[in-house]
């Protein structure tokens, strides 16, 4: 598979989950494990451009796919618009949910480029945040959509 554009090959046991693979084999610890029960979305990454919960997919299933993690979003020193918008709109507090939130938002904006507030709330229903009350997250995603449009 490729991870953030880099081809990678590791031999792993079939039971290794994609999130373990990314954190332990690829050394990319930006992707978090929140619940480990497919509920919280902290482990969200993109698989061929679509958001998936990496705690609920075996690394072997992603063989040959293109994976993007939070580490792969920025272009050098320039943040991705969704990252920039979270930064400017206080879209995070403790930060634990943020990598997953940002990846889910990137996928959402790919599918719904001009979302309403309700589209954003529904589109991020698979991601839980214990700190922000979601308000600033929704504001960030709407701001990011605006930035991308410009």
């Amino acid at each position, binding site marked *: 598979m490729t991870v953030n554009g880099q081809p990678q090959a590791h031999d792993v046991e079939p*039971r290794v*989950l994609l999130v373990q693979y990314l954190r332990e084999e690829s050394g990319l610890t930006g992707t978090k494990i929140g619940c480990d029960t497919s509920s919280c979305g902290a482990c969200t990454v993109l698989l061929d451009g679509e*958001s*998936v919960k990496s705690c*609920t*997919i075996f690394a072997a299933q992603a063989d040959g796919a293109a994976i993007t993690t939070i580490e792969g979003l920025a272009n050098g020193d320039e943040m991705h618009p969704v990252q920039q918008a979270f930064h400017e709109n206080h879209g995070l507090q403790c930060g634990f949910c943020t990598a997953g939130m940002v990846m*889910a938002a990137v996928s*959402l904006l790919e599918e719904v480029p001009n979302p309403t507030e309700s589209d954003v709330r529904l589109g991020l*229903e*698979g991601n839980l945040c214990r700190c922000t009350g979601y308000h600033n997250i929704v504001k960030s995603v709407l701001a990011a959509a605006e930035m991308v449009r410009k």
Partner: protein
Amino acid sequence: MIPAAFDYVRASSADEAIALIQAHGEDAKFLAGGMSLIPLMKLRLATPTVLVDLGRVADLSYVTDAGDHLAIGALTRHRFLETNELLTKECGVLRAVAAQVGDNQVRHRGTIGGSVAHGDPASDLPAALLALDATFVVRGPGGERTVPAADFFQGFLETALAPDEMLVEVRVPKVGGAGFSYQKFQRRAQDWAIVGAIAARVNGGVHVALVNMGSTPVRASAVEAALAQGASPADAAEHAADATEPAADLNASVEYREHLARVLTRRALEAASS
């Protein structure tokens, strides 16, 4: 949480998948989107020794017009159904129900075949397919057979599928893009329904199916009969819990589920006819 060890094999066609399942025996299982199976394996509630990954069986992902019905490949993902124009136009109820399954991440992976084969009474699509009188095309080592939805769901997580049989296609009638409603009652947006009621106009009648009101998805036959005899939606909906056997759990008692079934059925009938 780490699942128990297993061997992983990949199939590139349905026939290869069936041959692999046969070769590996009783404890081998198909893996489609993994959205039901992987959580169970992580909890070690499922411990298959071999997984036959269907993820690369590319030719079973489709919605096509087959004349008097629509044919849907078993590996078609929820997200594909949610955004499919043909389905929106010819069987809008199924599109709407697919859009209510889990969250975006789950809909990007989960398949209609996996939902049906899993046979969970709390799942959305099985109830919708029961309401639609769908037909399931099942392929095994000896060839293909078709099973009507009414005979398919046999008990809690139990279906008419033999261990070496694969669901390959789902067939639904063309019922149009309007005249339906899905009322899903849930605690959090991404959750399974505590109770759900689906009403849809099918072949001139109104069909009603319930989610999570027994060990399988069920048709609300008493409601349908009352409607056929001219009862109002509100009067017919009073029969929604007749002959159901819902379970009690952390989310709801039996009485509460029965109450929800009546209220949600009334709302679904009213919304479907407006």
